[in-house]
């Protein structure tokens, strides 16, 4: 195994092509006149839905959603919204198979593509973002950035072990290019923007 390592690295040190400097990337990347409105449009364009509310109305806003109403097993990691599955009591992620709905706090949204960044810092099992039938992500509306360059500037990779940009519900077009929402992951994705 070590042989292959040195063999690969040695051959990569031979016949070096001329190196090119790394671009600085301080270009003026895309800015939107109203990033929050753009974010909402982007979420809808990727098959998701958005809600906007005041912090005090968060529980009510989520409670009014049909996915909340119809879900029996709910995981919530958002303060003020009660779930009925306690992640801390679940040792094996497989036990989350029949969770209908997960409600989790995202860190920020990206206007250009409707993606929400979320890491597993507050989630004991990251599968909780992928295995439920429906997912609701909550982000403060002031935390919407214009583009992916600003997004990565906000992420500290020293801190987390796993993080994901989620843009809309799970989808596929592998059968004749027909878009089907709900491939393996969430069948629906709501993003709630809290003012």
């Amino acid at each position, binding site marked *: *195994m070590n042989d292959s390592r040195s063999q690969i690295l040695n051959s990569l040190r031979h016949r070096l092509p001329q190196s090119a400097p790394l671009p600085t990337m301080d270009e003026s990347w895309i800015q939107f006149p109203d990033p929050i409105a753009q974010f909402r449009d982007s979420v809808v364009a990727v098959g998701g839905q958005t809600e906007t509310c005041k912090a005090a109305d968060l529980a009510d806003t989520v409670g009014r959603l049909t996915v909340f109403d119809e879900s029996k097993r709910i995981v919530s990691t958002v303060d003020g919204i009660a779930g009925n599955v306690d992640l801390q009591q679940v040792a094996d992620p497989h036990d989350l198979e029949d969770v209908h709905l997960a409600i989790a706090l995202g860190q920020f949204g990206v206007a250009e593509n409707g993606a929400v960044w979320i890491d597993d810092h507050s989630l004991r099992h990251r599968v909780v973002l992928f295995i439920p039938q429906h997912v609701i992500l909550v982000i403060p509306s002031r935390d919407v950035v214009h583009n992916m360059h600003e997004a990565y500037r906000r992420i500290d990779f020293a801190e987390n072990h796993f993080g994901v940009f989620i843009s809309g519900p799970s989808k596929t077009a*592998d059968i004749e*290019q027909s878009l089907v929402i709900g491939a393996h992951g969430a069948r629906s994705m709501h993003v709630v923007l809290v003012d």
Partner: protein
Amino acid sequence: MSSKTDHPALATVFVRDEARTKWHDEALWFVRTKRDRAAAAVPEWETLRTTAEQIKAHVVANLAELLERFEQNAAARGIQVHWASDGEEHNRIVLEILKKHNVRHVVKSKSMLTEECHLNPYLEANDISVVDTDLGERIVQLRGESPSHIVLPAIHIKKEEVGETFHEHLGTDAGASDPQYLTEAARQHLREQFMKADAGITGVNFAIAETGGFVVCTNEGNADLGVSLPGLHIACMGLEKMIPRYQDLAVFTRLLARSATGQPITTYTSHFHGPRENGELHIVIVDNGRTDLRSDENFRRSLSCIRCGACMNTCPVYRRSGGHSYQSTVPGPIGSILAPARDAHQFHTLPFACSLCGSCTDVCPVKIDLHHELLTWRREIARRNALPRSKKWGMRLASAVLRRPWLYRLAGSMARIFLRWTPRWILYSKLNTWGRQRDLPVPPAKSFRQMYRERQKRS
């Protein structure tokens, strides 16, 4: 891979079904137009492409340092790094890890590298079941085929055929062909596979030297489900997947999905920076010919490829000949550069499966000079004596005529007479492959040279 890949012969079989060829062509063109709309919506699109090109040029020049930095940072995070010189070693390493954990069932998300290394048959021969979890890949796996496209593995299959396959293997209703219904059936079937898997294998879209982490992009969420239920995650990557800084991800995540399917970003862009609680995370770095490619100044830019598939979707030859006619894990324009680098004799026809229209170069998000490299490959194949006899002698004849003006003139005047007076059955004999679907032009009475001279005399 005993016999040589004969792209023209395989394409001939593909185009025999005219309606299907048209359908295939249009399906891919539809994806290409989605890409165009997405690209046009980004005002700095060309800046992004240039930036990506520069980053990748830096990567290709500094691969050794970047890989070492990546290894160091990954190890510090508890990720176990393995190195494999070729596909065989890669498979052996994966098997060893799986055996150590007594793994019986593996779920795998899309990874062209594991296709390239033929990992599935290897693991199956060692009593480990492998289920491909990307819907398109599952379809081709159940049908005993290989993907015909790197992003859209089942683009060559009609929904009615998917219906038949699922009826046979998953027990869906006979005759059902509704994509919604079939996808739901696959969801249920694959959930069972996810639940019983002992390990998850994924590919790698980008590995970050600066942080020691890596990124996997999917739309279905299959990679994430596959590695967040079982405790063991093995990620397999070609060594060219390296990028220096995590800031570079901004450029590539903006380009990748827009170029691939016209989406602004993939649904799930997952960043792995360490094993799960009580879990293990392994990464296998694979060479398998890539260092040789890196040493070749003619073709090293092809290592910048981020596997978006845009060059396939736009290629007039790919769209009308199907991915399988390339007999290579990566088909289309980029595949026609990578495959002969692996074996110029086996894949000698691929660089000729190209009209040199340059459309691939125009859409490539990292600005690989695809059609130039394809042209270079043609010369290279002749130089390596990999041309078939018919082409070799044809080229020599043409070269002999074109080098001698008097012979060229003579040949021209003979052709003008010959083409006019030779009976059709001789002119369109078996030897004239070009004339099989086409009529030769009516020869002009005079050559250009004659006409030019007369014109000059007049003025």
